[in-house]
C-alpha cells in the first residue's frame, strides 16, 4: 500500500518563496576558531619569559598541548550542542565530521600533554623517563584536582577507544552512544586541574575569567539547546504515531501527528532525531528526514529497514508517544543559487528529495528529480512523486538495474545527454556513500561546479 501526500497549503506557500541563497557561516566560524587558538598560544607566550633547558622545553611543550587541548575540548562539546547556526546553516553532517576530526585531535593532545608534563616532572625530580608512571601517581596524589583529572583522562581513553572505527562497528550503537555521553563527565573532571594547576590560569586572573567564560557559555548552550529546547518543543507539539505504512518491501513511512506541527520551523530537506517511546526503543534516538513538507497536524518520515531500530519501526503502534529533536540539517532551499535544480536520490535517499521536490520554488521545467533504485518495485513514493511532477510541471526520471542486473549508466556523458544545460543547475543529492561519490564525479565531469553540488553525508 502506498500513500499520497501531495499538495497542501504549507507546501504551496513554500514554492512561492524567492530564491535567497544564504552563505554558510563555516568560513567565519573556522576563522574564529583559529583566532582563539592563536590567542591561547599568545597567552602561553606572554606568560613564559624564557625556557632554560631541555627539561623546560618538555614541560612547555606539555603546557602548550594542554592549553590547546583545553581550548579545543570546549569547542568539541560545542559542536554537539545542537546550536541552530551549526545544525541548520553549516549542516549537521559537516559539524559531525568536524566533531569527529577535532575530537580525535583533541584526545591526541590530551595524551601528549599528560605524557610530556609527567616526563618533564620526572626529569625535574632528577629521575628519568622510565619513572614516568611513578611520577604520574605522585602528581595525582599531591597536586590539587589531579585525582579528578586522572578520572577524566581515563574516561577520555575509554571514549577514544570506543570510537576507533573497528571497535565502533562491533559495538551496538546505543552502547557506543552512551559511552560517548561520558564525554560531559570527562570534560567536567578535567576542567578543574586546568584552573588550579595551570600556570597561566593561576597567575593571570583575566585568563581564568576567559576560561570560565568559554566553558560556562558552552555549558549554557548545551543545557539550552540539548535539554531545554527539546523539552519545550515536545511539550508544545505532543507528537504521537498516527500510522505506519509499508511503501515498498523494506521501506516504511511513519505518519506522526501532533499540535501545530507547521510551527516547528521545519523545512523540506531537514530531519529530526526521533525517539519512539515504545519498549526497546526509548533509549535511542535516530535521525530520519521528513519525506514530505510539514503539515499543521502531520509529519512523515520514510525509513528503510537496515538496522535494528529501523526494522522495529514497522511494529510501532498508533498512539505511541514520540520525542523529537530538531529540525536539523542544511540541505534546504537556502543552499540554492540557481533557478534550475536537479535532485538526485539513491534508494531511501529519496526522503529529503521528495520533500524538496514538492516545495522548491520553480516554474514548470525548473525542477528535475533523478531517482535511482535497484528495481522499479523499489521506487518508494513513486505515485506521489508522479503526481507532484504532474502538478508542478517538473521532470521525473528514474534509473534502475536492467532485468539481468546490470547497473544503469549514470556518467558525465549520459547526464549531459539527458540535460544539456546541467552545468546551469544546482544539484541536491542524497544517497548511499558509494552512489553519492560516483554521481558527484559524474556531475563534476558534466561541468557542474563543486559549490553547486549540495550533499549531506553522515559517513565519518
Amino acid at each position, binding site marked *: 500500500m502506498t500513500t499520497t501526500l501531495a499538495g497542501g497549503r504549507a507546501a504551496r506557500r513554500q514554492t512561492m518563496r524567492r530564491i535567497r541563497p544564504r552563505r554558510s557561516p563555516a568560513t567565519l566560524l573556522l576563522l574564529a576558531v583559529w583566532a582563539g587558538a592563536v590567542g591561547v598560544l599568545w597567552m602561553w607566550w606572554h606568560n613564559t619569559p624564557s625556557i632554560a633547558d631541555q*627539561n623546560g622545553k618538555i614541560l612547555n*611543550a606539555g603546557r602548550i598541548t594542554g592549553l590547546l587541548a583545553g581550548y579545543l575540548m570546549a569547542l568539541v562539546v560545542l559542536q554537539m550542542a545542537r546550536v541552530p547556526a551549526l545544525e541548520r546553516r553549516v549542516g549537521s553532517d559537516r559539524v559531525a565530521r568536524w566533531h569527529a*576530526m577535532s575530537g580525535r585531535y583533541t584526545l*591526541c593532545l590530551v595524551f601528549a600533554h599528560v605524557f610530556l608534563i609527567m616526563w618533564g616532572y620526572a626529569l*625535574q625530580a*632528577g629521575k628519568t623517563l622510565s619513572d614516568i608512571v611513578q611520577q604520574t601517581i605522585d602528581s595525582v596524589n599531591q597536586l590539587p584536582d589531579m585525582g579528578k583529572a586522572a578520572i577524566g583522562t581515563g574516561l577520555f581513553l575509554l571514549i577514544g577507544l570506543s570510537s576507533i572505527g573497528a571497535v565502533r562497528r562491533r559495538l551496538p550503537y546505543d552502547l557506543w552512544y552512551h559511552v560517548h555521553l561520558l564525554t560531559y563527565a570527562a570534560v567536567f573532571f578535567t576542567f578543574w586541574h586546568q584552573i*588550579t594547576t595551570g600556570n597561566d590560569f593561576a597567575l593571570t586572573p583575566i585568563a581564568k575569567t576567559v576560561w570560565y567564560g568559554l566553558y560556562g557559555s558552552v555549558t549554557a548552550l548545551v543545557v539550552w539547546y540539548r535539554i531545554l529546547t527539546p523539552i519545550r518543543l515536545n511539550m508544545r507539539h505532543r507528537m504521537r504515531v498516527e500510522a505506519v505504512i509499508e511503501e515498498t518491501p523494506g521501506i516504511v513511512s511513519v505518519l506522526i501527528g501532533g499540535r501545530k506541527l507547521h510551527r516547528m520551523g521545519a523545512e523540506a530537506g531537514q530531519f529530526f532525531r526521533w525517539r519512539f517511546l515504545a519498549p526497546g526503543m526509548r533509549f535511542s534516538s535516530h535521525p530520519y528526514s521528513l519525506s514530505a513538507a510539514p503539515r499543521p497536524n502531520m509529519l512523515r518520515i520514510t525509513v528503510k529497514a537496515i538496522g535494528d531500530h529501523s526494522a522495529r519501526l514497522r511494529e510501532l503502534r498508533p498512539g505511541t508517544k514520540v520525542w523529537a529533536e530538531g529540525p536539523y540539517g542544511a540541505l534546504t532551499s537556502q543552499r540554492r543559487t540557481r533557478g534550475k535544480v536537479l535532485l538526485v536520490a539513491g534508494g531511501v535517499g529519496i526522503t529529503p528529495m521528495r520533500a524538496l521536490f514538492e516545495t522548491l520554488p520553480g516554474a514548470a521545467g525548473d525542477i528535475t528529480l533523478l531517482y535511482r533504485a535497484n528495481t522499479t518495485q523499489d521506487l518508494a513514493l513513486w505515485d506521489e512523486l508522479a503526481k507532484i511532477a504532474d502538478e508542478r510541471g517538473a521532470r521525473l526520471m528514474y534509473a534502475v538495474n536492467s532485468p539481468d542486473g546490470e547497473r544503469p549508466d549514470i556518467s558525465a556523458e549520459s547526464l549531459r545527454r539527458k540535460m544539456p544545460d546541467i552545468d546551469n543547475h544546482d544539484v541536491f543529492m542524497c544517497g548511499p556513500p558509494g552512489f*553519492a561519490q560516483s554521481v558527484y564525479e559524474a556531475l563534476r565531469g558534466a561541468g557542474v561546479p*563543486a559549490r553547486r553540488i549540495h550533499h549531506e553525508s553522515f559517513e565519518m
Partner: protein
Amino acid sequence: MKKSHPIRRVLLASAATVSGIVLLLSLKPATDSTSASAQGAAAQGAAAAQESPQGGAAAAGTSTVTGAVAQTQYGVVQVRLTVANGKITKAEAIQAPKGGTSDQKTALSVPKLNQEVVATQSADITSVTGATYTSGGYKQSLQSAIDKMKAAGANTASPSQSSAAGSGQAAQAKTVTGDVVTTEYGPVQVRITVAGGKITKADAVQAPSGGTSDQKTALSIPKLNQEAVAAGNANIDSVSGASYTSGGYKKSLQSALDKAGG
C-alpha cells in the same frame, strides 16, 4: 565530497602540530631578558631586609605567630603558633571549615595536626586521611606561620651571634646573604648562618610567589633549607616539581658559601 585520505590528514595534522610547538619553543630565549631590572629591584629589597631594624619578637620570650589564611575547597584554614625559645610549644587552628560534614572532619583532623606540629617542629606533617583539603590548607597556613617565625628569629639572632663572635668565642657565627638568582618563576635569594665553618641555618629571603608558585615554594624551600644544613654545601638534591626554584636556590646558596669562605 572532496575525499582526502585519512592517513594523510593525520600525518599532516601531527607534523603541523609538532613543528609548530618546536618552533614556538625554539623562539623562546634561554634566559629572561627582563631579569636585569628584576635583579636590581630584588637586590634593593634584599638590602632593605638586611638593614631593617631588629624589632621582631624576642627570641627568648614567648610569642605567637599567625599564619596566612589558606583557602580550601571546604572553607578557610588559619593556623596560630605559640613560640618559646625558638620552639613551637603550641599550634592551633583559629579558622577551620565548618558546617555539614566539615564539622566532623575539622574535629577529627585539626587536633591531630596540632599535635604533629609540636612534635615535628616543622610544616612537614602528614595529612589526616579523610580530611586532605583541610590538612592541605592547614599545612599552607602553617608554613607561612613558620616562615614568619623564622624571619623574626633570624632578625634577632644575627646581631646577638655577631656580638658573641666579638667576644672571642671559638664558634664564630655570621650570616651571609647569597646573590639574587632569577628563575623562570621569580627571584630566589638564600641567606645562611655559618658557625665554625658549618652551615647552621639556611633560609630563603626571596622565593617565587603567586599562583602555583606559592605551593611550590611552600613545598620546596623548607626541604632545601634542611638539605643545605645537612649537606653543608651547595650539592643538594632538587625538589621534585620545583626544579626552577631548586636550581635558583642552589646557585644563590653557592654564592653565599663563596662569600662566607672568602
